[in-house]
């Protein structure tokens, strides 16, 4: 890996596509990370128009998606359950909102708390 952001890896049964060519419904096969290594979109999440717009606004030029016509989702998922799409969208929006205040430890703590809150709330809403 070149170390260039965004950190995404290619692999079997998937292809890296330009974000400009991303379409709604395409399934992400590798986590999309920000420059700090935090997960923006988890693998297994289907892209929505909103997510594609956010990827573009964050300057993420490419993502890994499933190859058309191939089903390679049998690959072991060691990250536990996938996040609901609306939670992923909120996390992306959050990254954008905080993009100008990174490297500030107070804001990093707030961001971490907010992410945990959104994720926990998202999963508790699911079970309601």
């Amino acid at each position, binding site marked *: 890996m070149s170390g260039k952001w965004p950190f995404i890896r290619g692999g079997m049964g998937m292809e890296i596509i330009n974000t400009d060519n991303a379409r709604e419904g395409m399934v992400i096969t590798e986590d999309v990370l920000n420059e700090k290594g935090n997960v923006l979109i988890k693998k297994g999440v289907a892209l929505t128009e909103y997510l594609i717009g956010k990827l573009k606004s964050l300057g993420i030029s490419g993502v890994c998606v499933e190859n058309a016509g191939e089903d390679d989702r049998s690959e072991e998922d060691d990250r536990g359950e996938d996040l609901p799409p609306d939670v992923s969208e*909120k996390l992306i929006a959050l990254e954008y909102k*905080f993009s100008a205040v990174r490297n500030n430890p107070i804001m990093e703590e707030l961001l971490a*708390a907010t992410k945990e809150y959104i994720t926990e709330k998202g999963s508790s809403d699911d079970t309601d």
Partner: protein
Amino acid sequence: MTRIKFEKRFARVDNLPTLSIVSNNIIQITQNPKSSALEVGRAISQDQALVSRILRMANSTFYGFPSKITTIAHAVVILGFANIRNLVLTASVLDMFASKGENGYFDREEFWKHSLACGVTSKLIAKRLGVKNLEEAFLWGLLHDLGKLVLDTHFSEEFAEVVRLVRKKEILIKDAEQEVLGLDHTEVGGIVADKWNLPSALIKAIRFHHDPTRAHESMRVAATVHLADVFCRALDMGNGGDGKIPCINEEPWKLLNFNKLTIKKVFFEMMKELEANQTKEINIYKRAHKRKPAIRPKLQSRLNGIDKSMRKTSL
């Protein structure tokens, strides 16, 4: 526009909002310890619209008074002078800046949602700090962005330019205000609040919510609102006109002693209090006053020149 130029215009403007005679009168009476409840009640009854608004607000869940309050006499006795004064102030400010509705390049509905959420959050943070009068803390948050309302209503062309710049450069509204006007909504709000003789803690909340260390002895007040504002932005509770988040200052952060766990705790409390009541409450705060002065047509004509796409508040 240079700062001096705008400041001059700002000082010269003769249509800056003023409190009504009735409100002013009530504020004077409630500040005098020799006044009687009867006098206060009589003063409020001069304005029937104010009576109904005060009763609605006094019974609103966010104020949290335990029993239903049905008459002004009851309200004065139960709530006390200080709370009545706060309610009158809130009602007066809300009436003055009644909802703009369809003109919303600056989205007033989102703005009130943000203000309301800040009020609730200020109250929750103040409670952690052991502040006694939590209704007042609610008011600090509710009215902290008074300056934006003044700008949007009385300097709508300039404020439209500010909002345009926020979207173009994706910056904070206070930075865009500095760039366009040479001063920001905290200064504008502070000047107006000062002119109205608002309680000094409230003036400090309005004036220093982006820079609490400058509030000196009222730093706890300003820090409470500073954090409440940032928390509401993090959780997307309403929108005060921009899509970014300002940095929390180090000193107030230490003063309020938050960490990841306590932030999350407050987040859950905020959501609990807001989710149940927001829709009902927001109507109390944003509802247009029937006797609004006719500023709208003028504003509409100014707005006609603004690109349609600019009118929608996104993010």
